């Protein structure tokens, strides 16, 4: 398979510096509002801060791929005496939890690295320097084009309601447009 140059964008998380403010959730939801900045709702954020205050757990997690079904296992990590339960580090928008789903439609959310902005906005607005943005180029094998948001959304709807129902709904919608 041919190789292509790919821009790898990473956000490094230094969770030890996190003060638990949830400012990253606020800005992420504001930037993705339609129109931009018209509303705020951390439940729509693509970064969430998993919090167990007395256990000293403040863990910013980014929304990753949509998972059709929940995974079979549940890991429990103990790091420096702190127990991160079950899905703690997992980025998936998955049926087993409420995280990373649009609150009204249930459609999956995914961090898009703030497509269209100069820099990821959660990085910009986290003044405690927890999040660091890095960019580099890598040679990678060509892969199928990444699913766009629309397609991911449709796929999730199809999983939830079945393809036929989605088709019907689409047909109704296009008639009423």
């Amino acid at each position, binding site marked *: 398979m041919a190789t292509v140059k790919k821009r790898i964008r990473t956000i490094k998380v230094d969770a030890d510096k996190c*003060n*638990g403010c949830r400012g990253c959730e*606020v800005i992420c939801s504001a930037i993705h509002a339609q*129109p931009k*900045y*018209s*509303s*705020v709702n951390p439940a729509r954020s693509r970064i969430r801060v998993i919090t167990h*205050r*007395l256990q000293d757990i403040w863990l910013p997690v980014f929304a990753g791929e949509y998972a059709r079904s929940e995974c079979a296992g549940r890991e429990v990590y103990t790091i420096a005496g702190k127990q991160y339960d079950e899905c703690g580090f997992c980025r998936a928008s998955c049926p087993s939890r409420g995280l990373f789903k649009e609150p009204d439609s249930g459609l999956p959310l995914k961090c898009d690295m703030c497509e269209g902005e100069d820099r990821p906005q959660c990085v910009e607005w986290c003044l405690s320097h927890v999040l660091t943005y890095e960019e580099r180029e890598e040679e990678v094998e060509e892969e199928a084009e990444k699913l766009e948001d629309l397609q991911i959304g449709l796929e999730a709807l199809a999983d939830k309601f079945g393809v036929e129902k989605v088709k019907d709904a689409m047909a109704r919608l296009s008639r009423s447009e």
Partner: protein
Amino acid sequence: MRYAEMGYHLEVDLATGNIERVETDPKITELHLGGLGTSVKIHWDRVPPETKPFDPENLLVFSTGLFNGTPAFSANRTVVTFVSPQSELLAYPMMGGFWSAELKYAGYDKVIFKNKSPKWVYLWIKDDHVELRDASHLKGTGALEVQDLIRGELHEPDAQVAAIGLAGENRCFTASIEQSRSSSSRLGGGAIMGDKKLKAVAVRGTKDVQLARGDEFMKHMKDVMGYINFRNSNPIPDVMTIMSGIGSPQEMVHTDEKWHSESFSWGNARTRRKNFWTKEIEESWTSTQHAAIKRLISCFNCPQHCGALISYKDVPRYMMKCFSKLTYAMAANVDDLGFSFRTVQRAQEYGVDGFSTPQILAFAIELKEAGILTDKDFEGAPPDKEGRFIWLLDRLVRREGIGDVLADGTYWAAKKIGNGAEEFAHNLIKKHEQLPIKLSMLDPLYFLMYSTNEKISITQIEGNWPQAAFATREQRERFVKEWPQLPDEKFKQYLLDWEPRGEKGIPYFPTPDMCCEIVDWMEMLHNIDDALGVCAGMASFCLKPPYHINNYPQLISAATGMDVDRDELKRKVNRSRNLHRAFNNRRGMARADEKPPKDHWKNRFPELEENLLTTYYRYKGWNDNGIPTRKRLEELDLGYVADDLEKRGVLTNGHG
């Protein structure tokens, strides 16, 4: 569409269990902004002056501010309002933390509780689903402990919970409401919750807070962010560390406590220990603090680090903030800072105010030493001072023995004890315990703030104006150079002319007229913060803050879509300020009540003080008894308040 606010209140009748979602009138927002402003209006309209603190009619209102839940940094205050069992006036202790933003996201601006529940309950709000749940199994649990218990039983790890402990359940007058790392602690809101048998209010929200002109709002917020970054890396020179930055006092970050430990009084606000901060103390306190602090934490959407997760020896974990680090050790006259780290955990689970409570305990110790309280009152108390202090705290929150009397605070306890005890309840304003500060020379600005503010708690009245004159001309010039927070350029000259002593020093300078303008500025900014739900540490409480009278109007306009300029903003908060005062006047508060503790300063100037008060009242448009005149009330569209005050004889012929 409503912007910045949600446009709904929750009305909860605890007697019947009836819960209603009530749409609010946008006109009220235009008139009173939000937060404290709109809550005061509710109390004025609905709580008649005959209402006693523990009457079912005493409303308990949990309010968000206009900016909570928006991207505005540090807008996280919950304003709790009620008629206080201690002062019997309208109290509004605020808490930071995470609760108010969550309530906004659930779709509400306020939760209004009326009447009393027949059995212990807690309120659970999840967006449109709102229910009163049985809390009988939670009775007796700690105010912090119960927050996790409730999250657990609801399977809602992201719920934010405000709760009371034993002190609130037992209606102690200094009971607090605890939430995450914060507490609404002054003047006994916890007692009102307990009286209503409301153990907690838990909330989780997943709705949108709308901004009218989001783009514009964020443009201004970027400037605010730039300033926060600048100030965090460029502390103000020539002032004490604790005042050089922004945010609430960074007590968890700083270890240098020379100033607090030597300038504040120990015991029952009695003794200053001017040589306390020795090398050994510094070493021991610093290492104790570093060992106790596990992580520095903030409130919702705030970049500062005022709080800390505490993990001290075998003490169960909890979160600490601000000055509570010192209050227990200093009141108990214990030199080991570990005593504070240990005691605050217990006090927080009990849910008591960390300022008043240590003072009440120290007051009891003094009464014992003076022979006014007896061995019988202290039967069973350990002999050592640490043990005795904790023993008293345990009695107080359970209202056992002498604790039952002390639980009402120093003013009411002294009255009950009699036999000269009143002399020992010496550090009060309007029946409320104050910070243990005893100074030498009368400060006219502080005199006015102490005497006249409805907050009744000096820690949250002061602000942008420096606490003391700079020693040198160069320092003053340096300070006035970059001062974008100023409401008027003339204040620069006041500061340049202000000397540490002599003719241009306190008590005669700033002159009474200047004092009025400065105090009015402090007060106005606090009232704006309290309406918006912004932490005073980022605006009214610190020197050179990120939010001020010159950027607030733009931010408010962009967030709400109401076009508000500086004058209009001042008018709005002045309206609420006067309505609050009228509420208290209607309950009997007047000039005779407006005075700082007798021993607050050694050098007092009775004539000057009377003049200051009169000048200030006239400046505010109040009569000489401290009651807003009809003219002032009408200017602020509060003619109906003048009518009411006249009808009740509080105001006569428009003059009183």
